[in-house]
């Protein structure tokens, strides 16, 4: 790869980050790639051409793959920065009481669960946000609510409130745009947070 271009010093000075240049370049690559990938995949689900456009991130396999990739990158960066003694430093942190670390080892179990819960929550948060919005739009437009549809379609009530599901679907679509941006931002923010936590010098 060689030396990073001197232009990366501009954001480093501008935002007052105390990272080394290679750390900053790595974080920039990972976080920017993740953000734009998630954002464009989220926004593709809003284009209304059925059969051609479908949000990639509304598939649990895609979000799980992204989460696993982020997890592996974070662990790799942590091992590269601190060496293999990163794990005892995380599982047995310095501030915890002694009897909780070694006599009854609850602290390592809790920390281990925390390490593995992060990619899970990343994957499921993105997947569920994308799927839930699309499901609500589908239910509103196709009227697939059993019982409620029958009641509404037979009588004067349907004639009065029949534009309501369409208006609801349009409002949910606007909300879906908002959710797409927010979820991409949250995914990138949490990736940057986990990377920063892995890069920090001492606990």
């Amino acid at each position, binding site marked *: 790869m060689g030396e990073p271009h001197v232009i990366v010093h501009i954001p480093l000075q501008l935002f007052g980050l105390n990272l080394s240049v290679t750390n900053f370049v790595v974080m920039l690559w990972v976080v920017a790639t993740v953000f734009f990938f998630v954002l464009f995949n989220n926004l593709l689900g809003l284009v209304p051409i059925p059969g051609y456009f479908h949000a990639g991130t509304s598939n649990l396999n895609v979000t799980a793959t992204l989460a696993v990739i982020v997890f592996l990158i974070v662990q790799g960066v942590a091992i590269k920065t601190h060496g293999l003694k990163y794990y005892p430093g995380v599982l047995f942190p310095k501030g915890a009481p002694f009897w909780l670390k070694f006599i009854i080892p609850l602290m390592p179990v809790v920390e281990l669960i925390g390490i593995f819960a992060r990619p899970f929550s990343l994957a499921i*948060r993105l*997947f*569920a946000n994308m799927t839930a919005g699309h499901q609500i739009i589908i239910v509103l437009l196709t009227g697939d609510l059993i019982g409620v549809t029958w009641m509404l379609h037979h009588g004067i009530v349907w004639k009065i409130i029949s534009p309501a599901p369409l208006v609801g679907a349009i409002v949910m679509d606007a909300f879906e745009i908002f959710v797409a941006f927010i979820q991409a931002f949250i995914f990138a923010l949490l990736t940057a947070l986990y990377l920063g936590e892995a890069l920090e010098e001492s606990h």
Partner: protein
Amino acid sequence: MDTNTVAQAAQIISTAALAKLGAGLAIGLGTLGSGVGIGVIFGKSIESAARQPEALPLVQRLMFTGFALVEAQALYALLITFILLAAK
């Protein structure tokens, strides 16, 4: 309620029906905490923005971050609902 009645009821009611009941309970109870959380987040950010208007950009950024993280909790419950709805 004696266990004999419960056992007889569990033999009659199919697992698919119980799964749908569980799905309804899951999404109903799951959005309770998330509703309270979102209300607290937005209330506090509105209050802090009204108290100090020049802190609004920072508060707004943290507000959207907190909103997405709290909303995710309710959507974990929705995921369980989808899993339970597909039970046979």
